[in-house]
């Protein structure tokens, strides 16, 4: 099935595209402001088509939290030319798969289809970019589905509740304080006109970009994009207020009680993210720190906290250097039986202190970099992953063309820089700690009806 062959024994050579395809991915901006990014990958006769809108939950206002995500649901509820359910039906008939996702930073829609179906997907997406019906009755049904989604994914998930509360405390001003799915009371009071207002504000070609990856010719894709998306008008966008988070001036703590068995400790330090790919240093060093702490099964957290000290049943570090809003470096885990949340917190802090005092070994850093490079190659196995990478960088304002440069910058991180960021940011003034205090279920064992025969 794979058509062409690009073998090379040198990894870095492989990452640098051969001369003939240096321009791949290709990009064009339409007159209405819509940018179209195309990456040709001819391994299989399929294509991923994505439309990204630069509007996520961080663009919402109080009382209307969750509207970005509700609108995402409503985008499948029809236009004058493609009624409710028609979008899904046509994608399915095309042999495709489709879905959408809302994040704090963006809302994106995608279809994976056999390559000959790309034009139809573009026609459907262009149609709903401007002509969504947003019918009151459809809204009334769908808002109930969204409330079920919130119950399923947050209200009945103790760790999700903990994360939601952590964000609400770590951020007091910046809209990262609200959950993407929205507060339940806001969902209960949301109206179709709230969704209409959101749609009219943000769903415009000049606030969107299209990413296409797969077995396509970029010129043909630009032609299709002109045909379907080119007819839409650009519109003025709302002014975005920065809503910068004021400096934190002391540790913040909170507890969540929920039915569960395993306690959880979640620590969140405020750290920077990439704003200037060339000049920034710290975000790259923080990425490497996360890899050294928890990037693999022999990384420090698992090795020390889980395996040697038996303090935790799991321990994780997480950091995303590419976000529109402020950055957070997370440490979290669950204590082993017989250990307390406080003991685990001490253990997590001790790992940070060790980096602050002794730095990291050259070997550990080299290991993190080896994984990074291999991960870049493995990503080439999935056209969906390649499209996601382009889309996510663009969503936070980093041109996708900078990806290679970001990999180089990660490769250049030194052990001294890792130690420096550990000293600079991991201070109590920048810390919020959230603890899950597990509550037993009301009855143990749970009352069960007998298995009653049914006729």
């Amino acid at each position, binding site marked *: 099935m794979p058509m062409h062959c690009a*073998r090379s024994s040198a990894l870095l050579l492989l990452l640098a595209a051969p001369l003939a395809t240096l321009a791949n991915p290709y990009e064009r901006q339409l007159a209405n402001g819509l940018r179209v990014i195309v990456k040709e990958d001819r391994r299989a006769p399929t294509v991923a088509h994505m439309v990204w809108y630069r509007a996520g939950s961080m663009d919402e206002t109080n009382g209307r939290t969750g509207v970005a995500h509700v609108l995402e649901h409503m985008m499948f509820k029809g236009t004058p030319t493609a009624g409710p359910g028609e979008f899904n039906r046509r994608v399915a008939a095309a042999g495709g798969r489709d879905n959408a996702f809302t994040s704090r930073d963006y809302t994106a829609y995608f279809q994976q289809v056999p390559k000959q179906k790309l034009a139809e997907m573009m026609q459907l997406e262009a149609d709903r970019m401007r002509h969504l019906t947003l019918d009151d009755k459809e809204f009334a049904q769908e808002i109930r589905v969204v409330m079920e989604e919130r119950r399923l994914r947050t209200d009945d998930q103790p760790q999700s509740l903990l994360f939601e509360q952590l964000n609400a405390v770590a951020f007091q001003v910046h809209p990262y304080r609200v959950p993407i799915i929205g507060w339940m009371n806001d969902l209960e009071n949301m109206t179709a006109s709230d969704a209409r207002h959101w749609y009219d504000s943000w769903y415009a070609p000049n606030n969107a970009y299209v990413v296409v990856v797969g077995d396509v010719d970029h010129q043909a894709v630009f032609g299709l994009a002109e045909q379907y998306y080119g007819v839409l008008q650009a519109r003025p966008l709302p002014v975005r207020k920065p809503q910068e988070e004021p400096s934190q001036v002391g540790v913040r703590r909170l507890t969540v009680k929920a039915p569960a*068995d395993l306690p959880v400790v979640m620590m969140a330090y405020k750290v920077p993210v990439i704003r200037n790919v060339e000049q920034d240093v710290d975000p790259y060093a923080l990425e490497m720190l996360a890899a050294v702490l928890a990037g693999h099964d*022999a990384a420090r957290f698992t090795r020390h906290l889980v395996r040697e000290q038996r303090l935790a049943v799991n321990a994780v570090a997480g950091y995303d250097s590419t976000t529109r809003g402020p950055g957070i470096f997370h440490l979290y885990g669950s204590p082993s039986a017989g250990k307390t949340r406080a003991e685990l917190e001490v253990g997590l802090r001790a790992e940070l202190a060790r980096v602050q005092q002794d730095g990291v070994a050259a070997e550990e850093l080299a290991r993190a970099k080896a994984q990074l490079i291999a991960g870049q190659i493995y990503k080439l196995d999935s056209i969906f992953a390649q499209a996601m990478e382009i889309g996510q960088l663009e969503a936070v304002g980093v041109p996708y063309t900078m990806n290679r440069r970001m990999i180089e910058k990660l490769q250049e991180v030194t052990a001294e820089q890792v130690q420096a960021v550990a000293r600079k940011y991991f201070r109590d003034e920048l810390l919020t700690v959230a603890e899950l205090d597990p509550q037993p279920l009301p009855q143990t064992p749970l*009352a069960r009806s007998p298995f009653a025969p*049914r006729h």
Partner: protein
Amino acid sequence: MNTCRLLIFLCLALTAQLTQAGPKIERWQTLAGTRVLFVEDHSLPIIDVEVDFAAGAAHEGAGQEGVAGLTRSLIDLGAGGMDETQIASRLADLGARLSGGVDLDRASLTLRTLSMVDKRGPALDLLQAILSRPTFPVEVLAREKARSVAALKEALTRPDTIASKAFWSAMYAEHPYGRQATPESVSTLQRADVLAFHATHYGAARASLAIVGDLTRSQAEALAEQLTRGLPAGPAIGDLAAPRLPIAGEQRIEHPAAQAHLLIGMPALKRGDPDFFPLAVGNYSLGGGGFVSRLMKEVRDKRGLAYSVHSYFLPLQQLGPFQIGLQTKKAQANDALKVTREVLVAFLEQGPSEVELQAAKQNLIGSFPLRLDSNRKILENVAMIGFYDLPLDYLDRYPENIERVTIAEIRAAFARRVRPAHLVTVVVGGE
């Protein structure tokens, strides 16, 4: 009109079928007796290897529940003179990724490595050591048991886990598919249990090997020999017995969650059974086809009762389940159950409409290329074909097997496999 459309569709399907052959799969057996399936693909410098053993949870003896998972989790935590840190560090140094797990039938180890000689050589040496010389260190065993017990206790507070465990018990009773690990059963496991399970179930004859990626047939042959020659011999073991079908019934379990979790189903289908195709096509219309199924329309779109609702068949070595599942606000549990049952009963009586049938075929055949558009997906398919010993042209013939299905066959297959007299229902939470 209808005939004309059908003809056009058949022609399209035929063209599609000619251009939609699956990947070229080569097959042989190693000297040790392990089945090997290989797909050569040089488009990326990646090699993917999956080793599957008939060592899933269904192969645990009574009182040994949890030993399959424990054995699999320990196998790469000490081998060939290396401890767990050395193994994980070396893999990370090479950029290699080792994953896998256990289900009811299988225990699997999956290695993804770069294909350059200086990467693949050491990565495959590590996998060989793990397969042939695992050490199961006693102190690691104690720790992993404790972690497993902690995870199980946590899971047993969750409505989805409680529902799933009750559902499998109700469907399979004393059959191995119905047995479940508990904190108590895992706590009693000893190192001798793990050693015995490994010696019995991780043998060459119980293994199948799938290899996809950047190597030649002769390199793949050498690799297969290397990985399998040190496997334990292992005794011959009889096949799993067929489960007895349960008597229809319903169980309610209290839970404080905001949503009730509902499951309906029964043992229904084995791998390799020809009913697979009519059931797959029919289930697409019932509850399998993403956003376009009857269950999705009735439960979610029309009534807003649930975020997700699905139905599927899970074919296994022995009869695997047909299952419908959904979650809904607890006050609505009975409404949702009623609607779901009505949809199922109507479908069993009538089968899909002609329009639904064509839509199902269009999607299942049209999406065929999406099932095979990465090495990772090819590996999953090829490993499944190898483990269950399905015909090598299974993927090539998939589109025509779907295309051939009729409404009458769907109704007949559902009547055989989804029988109200045997459907069990579990509701966790609700009022």
